[in-house]
């Protein structure tokens, strides 16, 4: 069964977020909510929710046009609209009776074989389906999304004993491939996996911070980076999710957890926090939380709350010897005698004790537990991976020394690790005490797995080349932030050289990596050092080398597929523009942003954007050149792959992959499909208008200076950009080649890098991460 249409009931934060993600995936969705008493517009709730999908940060929709895929309505008048839906997701109040009443209504209108799921986070499936007809129970499961559904990757799926396998597969597959989620099968237990462990961790981290007298900064510093947990730590996370949520979650957990559950002993009512909630200091959405930003005479100051007095004071960096020790390893942190070390041990030992005691009760495998924490809470390492860092035997001994029980699974691990690499394969310890391969779904290929299996074909300080099978090589950037430098360029050239004419061992190239970003562009620090030392030749040589490498990529006799994710800015974007095809992760941020540092694209970005413009707009020079001038001149970047299409970074033939884990396999498949009869593109022959067009564009920006919309140096940069985009001293009777355009780009780049204002922009960007408006 395929999910072609969907419906979401309940247009609150979760319901509308789920609907938006369905729309992002190209699935038409009906969004229904109740009719508020006395409302003139009876669908006002759903309609308002769609409005917010486009305006409230972080944006739920990847492209504004996707809003048209969501049809608003209300449950009183429009319930019949769900009749078309293959999947109906209920995201209404966490109230059993409300849900059951709704299910009864849905059962009357939904089409046979459609799947119904609940987004409940607290109510057991057994209760939801009790006394419902067998046909309903067979089509029902729980699909628990995390907030915000577009950005949080975890989707917990809970099946009941009656749930049809086919229904479940359809939901899993849609969640994985179409919605891009990491689907984790959970058992029907309270809080499922992520919140079961996550809430214990949060309560425990708060309780112990009070007990040991840590400041909120100290607690967050310990419960953050050293444990591979996001920088927000625990108090920062409460501020993010809302402190007033705590009592609700606690109440529902206490209502459903087993009588002997460790959670019951962890939570301690803190009067200071109760006072915060009473005063509306509920976190970022409220009047500040454990942290707040105060406006003072000296500007905006980040403040932290004193846990004893509840008063605010300027936030200060945590300085603990244990934090320094943590740089060595995790065990050095939890064994450190200071309060940070004691805190780390108390929190981590309780969390890991809890997690190791819950398998197989809440999940069949430890992998599911680790995946849930990584995908749902953003942890770099799951609980069992953390145990491996400490050593299972060491942890068991330490727990025993303190008179605590050692969970059977931990005891069974003894001196083994929960994960190991065997014969190049990642394996985990099953509950039966034997190792088995960590499963990867069909269509998932991870470079991390490839790397475990063997050595790279080639490697240098900033890039590596891997054989990913079927004659396809993968070029991986490895530098900090994947900034491009001479080594990255060398490896690009080397990749093309290694594949040669494509008739040997390798016949296609994929450019892909598993860092946080595809590439943030050229290494600005290196460029600045070269500029500061007047090493103009070095800069020009790097420009020429990049142009040459990207040209060889573009005209290679074999397909080159770029598979970007995260950020692909500047030079990173130019790599995309010179590839035969792009398979982009949906959350791609791409753009030619060089002008924000007072430069212009120097590796063929101007040229390729013009070529794409001509392909898109024919000979409409105003659209082609004007469009490129605006996109580059304003340093526009996308916030999704769909937006990157508007910027012409993605073309009609380029595709979008929703699931990050499927990106490499999709790109590889694309490369393999392109291989038979592949012909490289024809040589560039650009007919451009020359100086007059340039002057027109410059005049536009000059006019903006008068109104304060552009700065004096914007004019300098714009003039160089306009000079390149209009073809320099040319006229439409001449056809400009790749080299002609490269020369224009490099000359303009070389002039700009010599201006003090451009150097000032680069310095400012490196120092603050923000563009300088000079």
């Amino acid at each position, binding site marked *: 069964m395929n999910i072609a249409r969907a419906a979401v009931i309940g247009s609150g934060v979760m319901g509308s977020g789920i609907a938006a993600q369905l729309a992002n995936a190209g699935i038409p969705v009906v969004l229904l909510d109740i009719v508020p008493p006395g409302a003139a517009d009876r669908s006002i709730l759903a309609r308002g929710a769609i409005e917010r999908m486009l305006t409230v940060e972080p944006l739920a929709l990847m492209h504004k046009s996707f809003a048209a895929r969501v049809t608003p309505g209300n449950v009183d008048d429009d319930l019949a609209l769900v009749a078309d839906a293959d999947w109906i997701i209920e995201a209404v109040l966490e109230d059993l009776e409300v849900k059951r009443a709704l299910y009864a209504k849905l059962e009357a209108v939904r089409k046979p074989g459609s799947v119904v799921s609940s987004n409940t986070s607290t109510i057991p499936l057994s209760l939801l389906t009790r006394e419902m007809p067998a046909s309903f129970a067979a089509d029902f499961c729980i699909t628990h999304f995390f907030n915000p559904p577009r950005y949080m990757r975890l989707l917990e799926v809970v099946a009941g004993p009656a749930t049809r396998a086919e229904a479940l597969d359809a939901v899993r597959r849609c969640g994985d491939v179409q919605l891009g989620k990491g689907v984790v099968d959970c058992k029907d237990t309270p809080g499922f996996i992520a919140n079961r462990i996550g809430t214990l961790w949060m309560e425990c981290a708060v309780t112990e911070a009070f007990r040991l007298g840590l400041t909120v900064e100290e607690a967050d510093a310990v419960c953050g980076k050293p444990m591979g947990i996001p920088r927000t730590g625990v108090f920062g996370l409460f501020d993010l999710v809302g402190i007033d949520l705590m009592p609700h979650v606690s109440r529902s957990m206490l209502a459903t957890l087993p009588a002997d559950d460790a959670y019951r002993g962890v939570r301690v009512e803190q009067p200071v926090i109760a006072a915060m909630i009473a005063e509306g200091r509920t976190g970022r959405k409220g009047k500040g939380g454990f942290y707040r930003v105060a406006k003072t005479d000296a500007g905006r100051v980040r403040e932290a709350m004193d846990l004893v007095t509840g008063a605010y004071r300027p936030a200060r960096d945590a300085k603990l010897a244990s934090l320094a020790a943590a740089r060595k390893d995790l065990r050095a942190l939890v064994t450190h005698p200071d309060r940070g070390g004691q805190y780390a041990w108390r929190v981590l030992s309780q969390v890991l004790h809890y997690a190791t005691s819950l398998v197989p009760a809440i999940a069949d495998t430890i992998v599911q537990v680790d995946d849930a924490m990584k995908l749902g809470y953003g942890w770099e390492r799951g609980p069992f991976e953390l145990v491996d860092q400490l050593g299972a035997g060491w942890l068991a001994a330490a727990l025993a020394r303190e008179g605590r029980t050692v969970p059977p699974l931990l005891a069974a691990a003894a001196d083994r690790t929960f994960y190991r690499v065997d014969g190049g394969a990642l394996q985990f310890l099953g509950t039966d005490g034997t190792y088995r391969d960590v499963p990867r779904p069909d269509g998932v290929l991870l470079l991390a797995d490839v790397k475990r299996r063997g050595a790279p074909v080639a490697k240098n300080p900033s890039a590596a080349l891997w054989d990913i099978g079927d004659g396809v090589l993968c070029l991986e950037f490895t530098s900090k932030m994947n900034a491009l430098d001479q080594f990255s360029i060398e490896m690009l050239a080397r990749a093309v050289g290694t594949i040669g004419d494509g008739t040997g061992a390798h016949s296609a190239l994929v450019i892909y990596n598993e860092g946080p970003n595809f590439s943030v562009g050229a290494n600005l*620090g290196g460029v*600045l*050092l*070269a*500029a*500061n*030392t*007047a*090493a*103009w*030749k*070095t800069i020009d040589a790097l420009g020429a080398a990049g142009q040459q490498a990207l040209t060889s990529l573009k005209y290679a006799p074999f397909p080159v597929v770029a598979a970007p994710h995260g950020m692909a800015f500047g030079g990173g974007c130019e790599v995309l523009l010179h590839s035969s095809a792009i398979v982009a992760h949906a959350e791609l941020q791409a753009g030619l942003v060089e002008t924000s540092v007072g430069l212009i694209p120097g590796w063929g970005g101007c040229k390729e954007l013009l070529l794409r413009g001509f392909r898109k707009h024919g000979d409409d020079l105003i659209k082609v050149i004007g469009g490129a001038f605006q996109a580059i001149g304003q340093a526009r970047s996308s916030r999704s792959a769909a937006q990157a299409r508007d910027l012409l970074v993605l073309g009609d033939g380029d595709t979008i992959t929703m699931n990050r884990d499927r990106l490499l396999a999709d790109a590889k498949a694309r490369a393999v499909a392109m291989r038979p009869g592949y012909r490289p593109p024809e040589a560039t022959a650009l007919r451009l208008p020359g100086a007059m067009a340039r002057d027109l564009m410059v005049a536009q920006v000059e006019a903006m200076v008068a109104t304060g919309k552009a700065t004096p140096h914007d004019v300098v940069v714009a003039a160089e950009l306009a000079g390149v985009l209009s073809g320099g001293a040319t006229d439409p009777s001449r056809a400009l080649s790749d080299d002609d355009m490269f020369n224009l780009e490099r000359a303009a780049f070389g002039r700009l890098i010599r201006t003090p204002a451009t*150097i000032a922009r680069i*310095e400012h960007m*490196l*120092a603050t991460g923000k563009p300088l408006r000079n």
Partner: protein
Amino acid sequence: MPTYKAPLDDMRFVLHDVLDVAQLSALPGYEEATPDLIDAILEEAGRFCAEVLQPLNQPGDAAGCTYEQGEVKAPPGFKEAYQQYCAGGWPALTADPKYGGQGMPHLMRSVVEEMMCASNLSFAMYPGLAHGAYHAMHTHGTEELKDKLLPKLVSGQWGGTMCLTEPHAGTDLGIITTKAVPAGDGAYRLTGTKIFISAGEHDLTENIIHLVLAKLPDAPGGTRGISMFMVPKFLPTDEGRPGTRNGVTCGSIEHKMGIKGNATCVLNFDNATGWMVGDANKGMRAMFTMMNGARLGVGLQGLGLGEVAYQNAVAYARERLQGRSLTGAKNPGGPADPIIEHPAVRQGLLRVKALNEGNRAFAYWIGMHIDLEHRHPDPARRAESADLVALMTPVIKAFLTDTGFESTNIALQTFGGHGYVREYGMEQFVRDARIAPIYEGTNAVQAMDLVGRKLPEGMGRLLRRFFHPVSAEVEASRADPALAEFVEPLAKAFERLQQATQGVAMRSMANPDEAGAAAEDYLHLLGYVTLGYMWLRMVKAARARLAAGADDRAAFYEAKVATGRFYFAKVLPQVHALAARIAAGATTVMSVPVDAF
């Protein structure tokens, strides 16, 4: 007996023809510093140094300082010379008019300092340290302290010192143990021992102001827990006279290789009364104000000694008749030719001449930027000059003292055996010059400051203030084909420097030992390129004067061009060896096990 004559023509050439010092008189507060007044000051300083200070140099070395029961006497004649120095108003030359100073540009002090160091380094250090104390107090002292003390320092009535080193803490000041305890009345009580304190105790002045680094009772560890205190030898009375003797005494003086006329003291602080200068625990910052100035001053010591040694060596080489020229007799009427006719002697003298004149231009150029840093009306220009001065401070200190020491050695060699005996005074120059690469932060420390701190700052922001002018100068000079023999070697050397900079920056990020192993060579590479830049500017200035019709001065300008030619052909090529050594990296240095030594 050696002689010294201030090289006024060379000085004026740098100030007027190369640096256009007249631009300083356009800065606020420097209106009176016209070229005419500057020349008059140079004349007078040159006369004072040649006639008063220089004759005391050799006797001062022979007599040394004397220590008796805590009292130290400078060599005979120093006290009288110091009185003349004060009567001439020299301590006030560049001081703030608010405290009795004459308000001349700082650059003038550099020029006068060169002369004083050349004529009598041991003497020059007494007022030199007092000036450092003046500068630190002027920048960081409270108004009350300044009003009380600065006029005394400016008039020269009182002396000054900087007290950093302790028996166990030299380069590593973070571990000093001298304690400062609040006395309750705003003052502090200091206890501890300081060593190697130049001018720490003497009879030239009625009182001495010690600036002392010490730790407050609750101070954090390391250099972040150091504060600076002003501790006078005699507590000043309300009328500003030396009053009660303070608890600071001189335990002994060092017996050392050179600068024997300057008292190098062990100072014992025993509950001595002091006042904090600057903020608590921010003493290193305050002291660096003084030390940066002092580092430039030490560089000038190298230059001054190189100059005086050169003058005497040239005089000797002209007169000393020995052997015949390889290409036929040049003095057929005499028994032999003057040794200056021999290539080996010439080469040595030319090397010293080229280094001296290049170092002088370098030092004055940076000296002028100190004035621009403080007085230019445009904050952006001030910041740029500050960057250049920060970048070049370690280079001036280390390069000028390394080459200055080398120059005194070459000059001594010119004398043969006569250089090794006391009579001609050459060995004193070598001995005196030997301290300069050591104190005020050893030259290895300077090199680490350059490579570890100044180079990476802002991804090379400080470097920009030097590399961009050089790049522009090279590009502009290439338009004149007649300059090719000067420009092209510089362009090549500059390229080596650019490559070395990139290489050191990249390798150091991966391994800090790379920075350490490259540091001294890199500093020298930068030094030689800087002198190349200065020489190109000097050659162009001299050629411009010749083109304008220099008449009776033609020989002087032609000599400049010829010396520049020598520099580019025979001195600058050292950069290629340095570049190769830098490129070789740290492995061969660090891979040798300690046991193998």
